[in-house]
């Protein structure tokens, strides 16, 4: 075991997989020499050479499009989009091509590749650096969308993503890249994509979160320590395909459902979760299922961002409202 933060866990996952699989190539803007602006790929060029870890011209469609070609050829590209806010020039490549090649070619050209990107707010960033656009990808058939929240999961899910036969969008909550450390096994291991994790069992309310919001949810539960409210906390971990069973089973047990996400509200992932809870656990519900989300506005610049952020206080208050319903 080694004590690692999320960035360290990513770096170790890449290093170990590259060691095991010579067909893995890692690239993106600044991803080579510098090791990425967040240093997730640090040291890889030095260790594996420029052929396996390199910088590209500043062109997102070129990055994803060329990765598609590489994957068709049988390499395993793991490409970095510097910030999720800048993935949009590559959106065409992702949606029109990466998600569809297997289907388009009737199974002949599956694309095993990973497109990774830091996402989310709370780091006092410039415009376009704070959005949470997981729903855009989760809406597209053919993609898998993964978001880890802990170093253990980051390493295990990244290795699983690299080994996955389908294109995986790997969104990294940059706010917690270095926020805390955790003991992580030294050897490579996988965490299954498509499985949510129950972080804490409870009987009164099911609370679902992912990415940086998991930590905020935990803090909210701490705030409620004296209140006798028993919360079941689920880290969704994979936005698509969604772990419907885990959500429904828990909600049937607790009778109340709350989803917390940084993404804006309308047409967000919360809508999807509430829909499936209503479809499959309707008769167990003791309160309307609820979502606590960002507002339907562009994430404000740092001076106003606190209005947008989900805080433990907001979460605790929503939990109390649902319990008292």
């Amino acid at each position, binding site marked *: 075991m080694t004590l690692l933060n999320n960035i360290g866990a990513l770096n170790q996952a890449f290093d170990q997989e590259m060691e095991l699989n010579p067909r893995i*190539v890692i690239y993106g803007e600044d991803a080579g020499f510098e090791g990425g602006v967040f240093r997730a790929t640090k040291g890889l060029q030095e260790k594996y050479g420029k*052929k396996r870890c390199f910088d*590209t*011209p500043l*062109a997102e*469609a*070129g990055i*994803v*499009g*060329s*990765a*598609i*070609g*590489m*994957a*068709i*050829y*049988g*390499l395993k*590209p793991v490409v970095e989009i510097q910030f999720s806010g800048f993935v949009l*020039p590559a959106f*065409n*490549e992702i949606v*029109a*091509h990466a998600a569809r*090649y*297997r*289907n*388009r*070619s*009737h*199974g*002949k*050209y*599956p694309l095993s590749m990973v497109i990774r990107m830091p996402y989310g707010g709370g780091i006092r960033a410039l415009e376009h650096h704070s959005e949470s656009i997981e729903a855009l990808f989760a809406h597209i*058939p*053919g993609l*898998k969308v993964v978001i880890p929240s802990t170093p253990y999961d980051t390493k295990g899910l990244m290795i699983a993503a690299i080994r*996955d*036969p*389908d294109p995986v969008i790997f969104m990294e909550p940059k706010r917690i890249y270095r926020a805390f450390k955790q003991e992580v096994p030294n050897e490579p291991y996988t965490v299954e994509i*498509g499985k949510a994790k129950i972080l804490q069992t409870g009987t009164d309310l099911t609370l679902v979160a992912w990415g940086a919001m998991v930590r905020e949810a935990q803090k909210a539960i701490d705030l409620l320590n004296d209140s006798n409210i028993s919360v079941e906390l689920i880290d969704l971990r994979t936005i698509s*395909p*969604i*772990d*419907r*069973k885990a959500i429904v089973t828990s909600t049937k047990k607790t009778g109340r459902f709350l989803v917390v996400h940084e993404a804006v509200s309308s047409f967000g992932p919360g809508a999807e979760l509430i829909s499936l809870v209503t479809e499959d656990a309707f008769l167990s519900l003791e309160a309307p299922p609820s979502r606590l989300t960002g507002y339907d506005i562009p994430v404000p610049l740092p001076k106003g961002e606190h209005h947008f952020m989900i805080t433990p206080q907001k979460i605790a208050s929503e939990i109390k409202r649902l319990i008292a319903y």
Partner: protein
Amino acid sequence: MLSKTYDPLKGKKLEILSAEGKVIKPSLMPKVDLASVRKWYETMVFARVADQKAIQYQRQGRMLTYAPSIGQEAASLGAIIPTEERDWLVPAFRELAGWLQKGAPLENLFLYWYGNEAGSLLPDSVRMLPISVPIASQLTHAVGLAMAIDYEEKDEVVIAFCGDGGTSQGEFHEALNFAGVFESPVVFVIQNNQFAISVSRKDQTRSKTLAQKAIAYGIPGIQVDGNDLFAMIAATQEAVERARAGEGPTLIEAVTYRLGPHTTSDDPSIYRSDEEVEEWKEKDPILRLKRYLISKKKLTEDEDQALYKQFEEEVNTIFSRIEESQSPTLDDVFSYTYASLTPNLEKQLRNAKQFLEGGE
């Protein structure tokens, strides 16, 4: 180097075979034997017949929308001839003659335009990506393939096509820039057929030639008479050799003309004149090669007519097989989105089957 002699910035265009079927640049004539030329001619005629039949089927309501390649046979075919089986073809959606030359069956192409994805499942020996409907984004895939070829140190080359409209897309430029920076073994062929649906070439870009766009990316570019099979072979041969030698990409602009409509849903008479079409008919790549072959006593008018007849029958037979082919099953349409069905898809498939079986 041809791209030096035929500098696109000076408006130079490579031509070898005149519209009258005469070799006007013997020194540049690629080394080809007449038997092969005759075979290539037959491939072009076969493509022409298949196109015309497809339009006919469509008019009869037996085929869906179809994008014919009529007039562009030489550009497509000539670019594939200098490649080997191990090389890759990345097509746009108008590459019938090249498609056939690459060894891909007409069945597949028809099946695709007939509305069945199974058409894109090509035999393993055919190194070719499926048709790409989004314009120009396939060029980055071609570069990725070429980057992977470099990575694996394989002796293979990628040949990728787009149209004149495609050169306006951002991804055209990203692809060329990537290929230049990484010196990837890829040959880009622009099929400049003068129109992107109704938008003419001059309304597409202020560049004098499309070939000169290569210069911005530090790679050679050459403008070629795309209706001249020999010029296309010569230019592509040099580009392929350069790519094989590790000298990086080339951009070839094939100047040609779309004699047919953009697709069967299009009416070209509203945006181009009959005179223009007539003028280009005189430069038809098939007519030109026919004149050449007749002058070389490798073809007679009678044989030519017999070819058309024979191919019409062959195409009819192939198309009736397509019409008799099975439609995709429910399982089929669910099967290829992920490696295995997600729980969500399993549920949707189960529900769909229950509905079908229960009839309610």
